[in-house]
C-alpha cells in the first residue's frame, strides 16, 4: 500500500481519490458511492437519448423519497408524481442499479437510508444530486451534493472534476444543557457564521459536544452544513461510528471489516494538521433555538424576542430583515414564545431518525396535540423500529398523524405542502420563502421543540414543559 496521506481527515480522503490532475488546480476524483432519487430523471433521460451506459451501476443506489406520498396506508399519487417514480424504476432496472422502491421497507429519504444500509462508510467519496448529501459526512467521509449534469457525469465516468475547497474547523466544546439537542447546535453554528459563512469550505465538526453525540445526532449537524453555505461537513470517525456500522447490510464483514477498521482508524485529522479557518463555540451557552426569518441564519434562543430591523448593522440587512418579518407575519419585539403555530412537521433528512422520534415522543407522552401535527419517519425501517418501541402509539394517542417514510412537507414536491399563511414549526432544514408551500411560514426547530409546539400551539421552550 502507498504511504498514508497526512493532514486533516478531509485532505486524507481527497488525496486518496485523485485519479489525475487537470489544468488550473482541478483534479479528477473517483466516486465510491453515488446515491440517486427521483430528481435524477433529467440525467437518466439524457443518458437514454444518447444511448449511454453507466460505468459502475454497482456503485449506485437509488430510492424514491421526494415524490412518493406519505399518506398512511397505500397512497395513490397523481399521474405526474407517479411518472417520476416510474421513470426511476424503469431506468434503474435497465441499467442494473439497486433500487429501494415503493413496498420495500428499506426505502426512505436518501440521506437516511445510505447510512442505515451501511452504504455510507468512513473514508469514501460519496455524491448525490441533492444538497443535503453533507449528512453522510457524519461518518468521516467526503460527501457533497451535485447538480444534474454532474449526476450524468458520474453515471458515465464514475468521476468528477473538482477544485479543492478550503477547510474550516468548527469546534463545539463544553456540554449541552438540558433540552438542548444537535439541531440547536447546528442552528447556533449557522447563526454564528452566517448562511454564506461556509461558502467554498468543507467543515470539520470537532470538540467534546460533537464527540458525545450519537451518529443520528452527528448526521443532524452535518446535514445542515449546506445551510451555512459549505460544500460538505464531516466528523472524524471514532468508536461511535464503528459501532453504528458493524453488521449493517452493505458494511464490510469478517476479514474485510478488520482491514477496513484498521484503515478508518488512520483517518482522523493529525494533531499538527492546519485548517484555513477555525471557529469555536461554547456548547454550554447554546439554548433551544428557533428561526424567526426566512434564512437558516435567522436563528435565536427561544428565550429571545423577534429582532428589530431598526437595529440592523446596515441598510441591506435592515431591508432583508423587514422583508423576512413581513413574509413571516411577525412584529419586531414580541417574545418568540408568543408566536402561535398552525401546524407541526416532524421529519426530513435532518430529523427523522429514531433518536429524533424518541426525543419528540418523550415530550408528547401523555399530552394532546392542539394543532395538526405530522410525524414522517425517514425510512420504512425506522418506522418499523419506532413501532416496535411503541412510539407510534404515543404519537397517535396524542392526535399526531403517523405517516409513511419520505421527504413530505420538507419540500412538498409530492404535493404535501402547508397552505399559504400557515405557520409551521418544522424539524426540517430550510425556512426559505415558499419552501413548505407557497406563502407557508416555517420556523425551524428540534424534534423536542416541535413536539412542544404541537402540544401548546405556540413556539415553546421545551425546558419549561418537562420535569
Amino acid at each position, binding site marked *: 500500500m502507498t504511504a498514508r496521506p497526512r493532514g486533516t481527515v478531509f485532505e486524507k480522503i481527497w488525496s486518496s481519490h485523485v*485519479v489525475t490532475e487537470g*489544468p488550473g*488546480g482541478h483534479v479528477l476524483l473517483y466516486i465510491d458511492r453515488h446515491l440517486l432519487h427521483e430528481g435524477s430523471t433529467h440525467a437518466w433521460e439524457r443518458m437514454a437519448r444518447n444511448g449511454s451506459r453507466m460505468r459502475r451501476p454497482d456503485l449506485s443506489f437509488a430510492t424514491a423519497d421526494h415524490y412518493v406520498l406519505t399518506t398512511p396506508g397505500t397512497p395513490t399519487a397523481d399521474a405526474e408524481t407517479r411518472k417520476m417514480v416510474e421513470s426511476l424504476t424503469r431506468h434503474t432496472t435497465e441499467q442494473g442499479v439497486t433500487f429501494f422502491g415503493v413496498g420495500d421497507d428499506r426505502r426512505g429519504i436518501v440521506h437516511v437510508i445510505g447510512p442505515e444500509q451501511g452504504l455510507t462508510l468512513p473514508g469514501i467519496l460519496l455524491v448525490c444530486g441533492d*444538497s443535503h448529501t453533507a449528512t453522510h459526512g457524519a461518518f468521516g467521509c467526503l460527501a457533497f451534493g451535485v447538480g444534474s449534469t454532474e449526476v*450524468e457525469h458520474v453515471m458515465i465516468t464514475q468521476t468528477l472534476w473538482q477544485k479543492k475547497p478550503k477547510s474550516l474547523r468548527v469546534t463545539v466544546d463544553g456540554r449541552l444543557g438540558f433540552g438542548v439537542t444537535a439541531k440547536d447546535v447546528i442552528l447556533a453554528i449557522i447563526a454564528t457564521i452566517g448562511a*454564506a459563512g461556509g*461558502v467554498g469550505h468543507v467543515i470539520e465538526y470537532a470538540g467534546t459536544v460533537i464527540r458525545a453525540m450519537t451518529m443520528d445526532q452527528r448526521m443532524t449537524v452535518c446535514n445542515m452544513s*449546506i445551510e451555512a453555505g459549505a460544500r460538505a461537513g464531516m466528523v472524524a470517525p471514532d468508536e461511535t461510528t464503528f459501532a453504528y456500522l458493524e453488521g449493517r447490510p452493505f458494511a464490510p464483514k469478517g476479514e474485510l471489516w478488520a482491514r477496513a477498521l484498521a484503515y478508518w482508524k488512520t483517518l482522523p485529522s493529525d494533531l499538527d494538521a492546519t485548517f484555513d479557518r477555525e471557529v469555536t463555540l461554547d456548547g454550554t451557552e447554546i439554548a433551544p433555538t428557533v428561526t424567526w426569518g426566512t434564512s437558516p441564519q435567522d436563528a435565536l434562543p427561544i428565550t429571545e424576542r423577534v429582532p428589530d430591523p431598526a437595529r440592523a448593522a446596515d441598510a441591506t440587512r435592515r431591508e432583508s430583515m423587514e422583508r423576512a418579518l413581513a413574509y413571516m407575519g411577525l412584529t419586531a419585539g414580541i417574545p418568540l414564545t408568543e408566536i402561535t403555530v398552525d401546524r407541526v412537521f416532524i421529519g426530513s433528512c435532518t430529523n427523522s431518525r429514531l433518536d429524533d422520534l424518541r426525543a419528540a415522543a418523550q415530550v408528547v407522552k401523555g399530552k394532546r396535540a392542539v394543532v395538526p401535527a405530522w410525524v414522517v419517519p425517514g425510512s420504512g425501517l425506522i418506522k418499523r423500529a419506532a413501532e416496535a418501541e411503541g412510539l407510534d402509539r404515543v404519537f397517535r394517542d396524542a392526535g399526531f398523524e403517523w405517516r409513511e417514510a419520505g421527504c413530505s412537507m420538507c419540500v412538498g414536491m409530492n404535493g404535501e405542502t402547508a397552505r399559504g399563511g400557515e405557520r409551521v414549526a418544522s424539524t426540517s432544514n430550510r425556512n426559505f420563502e415558499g419552501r413548505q408551500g407557497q406563502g407557508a411560514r416555517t420556523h425551524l426547530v428540534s424534534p423536542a421543540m416541535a413536539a412542544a409546539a404541537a402540544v401548546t400551539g405556540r413556539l415553546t421552550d421545551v425546558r419549561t414543559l418537562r420535569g
Partner: protein
Amino acid sequence: MRAFTRLAAVAAPIDLPNVDTDRIIPARFLRKPKNPEYGRFLFHDVRFNADGSEKPDFVLNRPAYRSAQVVVAAENFGCGSSREMAVWALEAFGIRAVIAPSLGDIFHQNCFKNGLLPVILPVAAAASLRGQLHEIPGASVVVDLEAQTVTAPDGAVHRFDVDPFRKRMLLTGQDEIALTLGHETEIGAFEARHAREMPWLVTD
C-alpha cells in the same frame, strides 16, 4: 454546451442577499420538462400574482429590464438546493451571466455546465454596479470572458478571476463528459488500484 465569449447586454440588479434556488424556481416546477415555456418558472412566486398576472415591481417585469441577459446580485446568490433547474430557468429567460460578491457553491458549478458565466466581484464593485443599474434602468454592461473583465455603465472596468479550466471549457463550449472519457486509461488504472487497496468498497 453553448460557448460564452463576450456579452454586451442589459443587466438587472437584485439587491436581496441569500437568494435561494427555491426562490429562483419553486419545487413544484422541478418535474416539468425543459420546454420553451421554461423561462416562466423563473422567480415564479415573486414575479407573478396568484392569478398569473405580473407583479409590476419585480425587477424583471419592469420594461427597462425585460431584455436583461445579465443579473447583478448580492451575497450568496443561488444558495440552498442543488437544483440545476435554477440555472435552466435563468437561461430560458435569457440570462447568460450572473455577477455577485459570492454564489452558492453548487449553483456556481451548475452555471458552468450550462454555458452561463458566474462572475465573483468584490462586495463594493457589485454594489456600485447595482447602484448604476438602478439609476439608469436598462443600462448595459459588458462581460468579457477572454479578458476577464466587466465594464460598468460608467465605464469602470472590473477584473475578475475565473478558473482557467472552466474558462477554457466555456470559451470553447466543450463537453465535459467527452473530456473525461479521454482519461479512460487513468480512470481504469485508478479503479484497479483502489479496489486492491480498499477491497471492502467493492459491492457484490
